[in-house]
């Protein structure tokens, strides 16, 4: 029974990783950049909920909506101010370093406003735990909501990208920016939209993450951010189903190795599995193999 319990916890953690990884993978697919600041957007989203609910004593739903809205605005702003001027830069490293700078900036702004003390985040989920198999198996409400959220987001996003006009524009821009522009697609607006979606998903992921693991500090987002990035690469960066598979697998591996092998070595095991997967399949599980032409 404990194995099933661990497995469910793993899928729940993996769902959070998958939602964060979506942000990475969409941004990578369209702008060909690693958005290192993505993890810190999660942290900002959590602080927004925390401020509204615990400090201002306003209702939870308001906090959740404001958190998503503010993160969306934050994502668009970061892209417009820090990343857009560097899009045509000769080195792709330039925008990577700028993203790192943005990440430091967000962490230190949070540090200045909220301090380094750990804040206890109150769960946004009010669902009661479910008892199965005569009480031997208890599934927390947070776990169920997290997994459900992930599935809903996944389906909605796949439909959006494949069926809507804006989604098709995103596909076109990620394929070839120049050609997309010639077809009358507004490239800047499309990239802004991608950042907006990615950042709003980050806000959702942050709330779910902090509901299950309630310790909130300015560095809360950084490790899950890295792990989600690993998940995105694991599944094949640029691919939406890949982010889903990568995230879930990563969560399961992490929880199982924490429970059965060693809690200190769990991260090392996760990263080792990643290296093995990439050595065997260099573009990730669902990544496309692009033949290099001379």
């Amino acid at each position, binding site marked *: 029974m404990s194995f099933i319990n661990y497995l469910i916890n793993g899928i729940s953690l993996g769902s959070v990783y998958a939602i964060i990884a979506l942000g990475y993978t969409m941004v990578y697919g369209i702008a060909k950049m690693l958005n290192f600041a993505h993890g810190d957007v999660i942290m900002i989203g959590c602080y927004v909920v925390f401020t509204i609910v615990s400090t201002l004593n306003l209702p939870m739903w308001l906090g959740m909506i404001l958190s998503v809205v503010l993160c969306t605005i934050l994502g668009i702003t970061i892209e417009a101010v820090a990343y857009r001027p560097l899009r045509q*830069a000769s080195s792709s*490293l330039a925008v990577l*370093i700028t993203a790192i700078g943005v990440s430091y900036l967000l962490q230190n702004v949070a540090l200045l406003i909220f301090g380094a003390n750990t804040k206890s985040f109150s769960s946004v989920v009010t669902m009661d735990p479910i008892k199965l198999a005569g009480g031997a198996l208890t599934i927390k409400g947070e776990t169920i909501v997290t997994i459900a959220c992930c599935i809903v987001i996944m389906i909605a996003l796949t439909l959006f990208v494949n069926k809507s006009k804006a989604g098709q524009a995103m596909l076109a821009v990620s394929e070839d920016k120049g050609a997309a522009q010639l077809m009358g697609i507004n490239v800047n607006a499309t990239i802004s939209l991608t950042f907006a979606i990615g950042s709003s998903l980050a806000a959702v992921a942050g709330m779910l993450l902090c509901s299950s693991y309630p310790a909130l500090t300015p560095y809360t987002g950084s490790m899950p951010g890295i792990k989600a990035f690993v998940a995105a690469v694991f599944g094949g960066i640029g691919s939406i189903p890949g982010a889903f598979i990568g995230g879930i697998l990563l969560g399961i591996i992490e929880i199982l190795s924490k429970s059965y092998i060693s809690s*200190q070595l769990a991260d*090392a095991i996760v990263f*080792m599995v*990643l290296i093995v997967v*990439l050595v065997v399949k*260099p573009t990730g599980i669902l990544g496309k193999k692009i033949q290099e032409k001379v």
Partner: protein
Amino acid sequence: MKNYLVKQKDNLITFGMVIGAYIIVEILMQAGLISSLLKGLLVPLCAYIILAVSLNVTVGILGELSLGHAGFMCVGAFASAFFSQLTKNSISADWLRFTIALIIGFVSAGIIGFLIGMPVLRLKGDYLAIVTLAFGEIIKNIINVLYVGRDSKGLHISIKDAVSLGLEPDGEIIINGAQGITGTPKDSTFTIGVVLILITLFIVLNLIKSRDGRAIMSIRDNVIAAESVGINITKYKLLAFSISAALAGVAGVLYSHNLNSLMATPKNFGYNMSIMILVFVVLGGIGNMRGSIISAVILTLLPELLRGLNDYRMLIYAIVLIVMMLFNWAPAAREYRDKLLSKINFGKKKTVEAVEGGNEDGNN
């Protein structure tokens, strides 16, 4: 030939700059003008410079992105500190022990770099970056659960806890898991640090000039073209990667022999450290060794000089970083800068363009 002489002169300027800075700092120190805070920063600064120059071999000369450079530093640091602890009582001459420690750091990090490089160097771009990042975290994690002790029966190793080492009463714990290594002899000095910087520069600058260096740079510029003229891609990639790792190991030796207790925390050996070194390299100019040195010095001293501003210093650091990147790399800002420069000095415009053209070549 003329080009060769220009390069030679360029290298001499780099060496001269380091030696000049060393003399100035020594004079200031004799005059008592350097605060103890800055004094404590000198040896780590030397280690950071070596790290920046060595990472520039991977990023600038080989053209691959590595986010796990701190991992190699970690290997060098722990391997050498372990050796120094073991022989603290048996080798009495400090210089001899430290020289051997340096060689051990160099070789161990080089071997690890070679082993890591073999499977992963066939990955490209961002995939290689994430694997090197993962590797750095693995090294840090493993060292955090590693326990090594010594008693009359020899060495004992465990990855559980100190008790399961099963030491005799006379035994001592050398690597104590997350507590790391305590009591490493303080063999690093500022002078040794500067000498090591000069040796590192000598190795790297000569590598760039050599036939091997040109082969490595041809891989960076175009893999397919390099392969078609008969350059062994795997061999040269591994060569550059291993040299880069080995030099990072030397930096680790310098770093570890300056600390009383050496711990593998996320702060000193985690991916944040790797990223900080990468920031030095990119800000100083990819492929430009002198730039790496200058930016390492400025960015290490900047937070310390801003210490008066206390809480705001890291915030300012972040803003400076973003603004500098935008100003240096955004095409619009470059155009504006060129226009400004040509207005100020008509004759210098050509050289500005020539330098920037060189930079762009170096980044593919």
